[in-house]
């Protein structure tokens, strides 16, 4: 590459128009040449080259990293105290709500009657007694109710008379 080409390339470099490949060419060129008119550019490229070789400079680095890696257990998903408190609060609300709802339901539907007799025969006697009482009451009521029939008869008689009257009127 002649100096003209290099100068053009350097100009391109300062305008940020060079490709990576061209920048590499410049670096290669300035490694061996230091034209007086491009002194500062040459220095810069030598600096770049020198910087590329800077290394971590510690032979034990890899071993140290590997040791730390072996020792490091991936962090378990930590649930923060705040989140735990939120979940706990939610549970408390649900439990309280459940309790009150149960109370209300209990009030609305009283307990089913329970057996009051342990002996089946006594239970039967008691049931019979109760049924007899109901039956007596019915009979009494029926007797009274039969009196209503008198009214019905009377009403029919009256109506019959009226009909007769109407017929005679016509």
């Amino acid at each position, binding site marked *: 590459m002649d100096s003209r080409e290099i100068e053009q390339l350097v100009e391109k470099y300062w305008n*940020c128009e060079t490709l990576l490949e061209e*920048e590499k060419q410049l670096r290669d060129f300035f490694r061996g040449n230091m034209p007086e008119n491009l002194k500062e550019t040459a220095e810069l490229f030598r600096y770049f080259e*020198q910087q*590329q070789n800077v*290394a971590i400079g510690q032979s034990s*680095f890899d071993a*140290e990293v590997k040791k730390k890696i072996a020792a490091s257990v991936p*962090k378990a998903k930590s649930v923060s105290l705040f989140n735990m408190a939120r979940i706990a609060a939610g549970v408390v609300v649900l439990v309280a709500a459940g309790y009150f709802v149960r109370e209300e339901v209990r009030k609305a539907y009283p307990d089913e009657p329970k057996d009051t007799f342990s002996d089946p025969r006594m239970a039967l006697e008691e049931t019979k007694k109760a049924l007899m009482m109901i039956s007596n009451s019915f009979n009494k009521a029926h007797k009274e109710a039969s009196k209503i029939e008198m009214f019905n008869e009377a009403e029919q008689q009256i109506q019959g008379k009226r009909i007769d009257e109407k017929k005679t009127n016509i």
Partner: protein
Amino acid sequence: MNIEAFENRVLPTKNKLFRFAFRLLGSQEEAKDVVQEVMLKVWNGREQMATIDNMEAWCMRITKNMSLDRLRSKQRRVTDSMEEGFEIRQESLSPLERTEIQESMQRINELMKALPEKQRQVMHLRDIEGYSYNEICEILELDMSQVKVNLFRARGAVREKLVKMNAYGL
């Protein structure tokens, strides 16, 4: 990712990560700590990282974020910054030339340090590490135009100062 893949894909990036962290933090000790932290983080998150195709760019990105976190944290240790020696490899140079080169390296180092953070990052990634613009976008989480503007300004500032220095015969 198993330990073997880690050793083949992640550990070898250590020097690049180190240089980048060093460029941002200015302290070798801190840079080394950051690289270790990055390695551990990558290892602990290896399940989620199975889908990442550019592992190196990903590691660089974590390095950047961790370094910036450190820079911004208040508990930052105050360390002597940039304790750096410039090793000159060329054997053919005379002692005088050697010191001259060392001095110019030191000056350019100071120039880079004086650049605003973003410009320094972009210039480091492009000119020292040789990343493509796309990779730089990925590492720095910037869009293409921002990367190009920052690089343009960085190179412009460095050039201007270099020319000035040489004009005053420094």
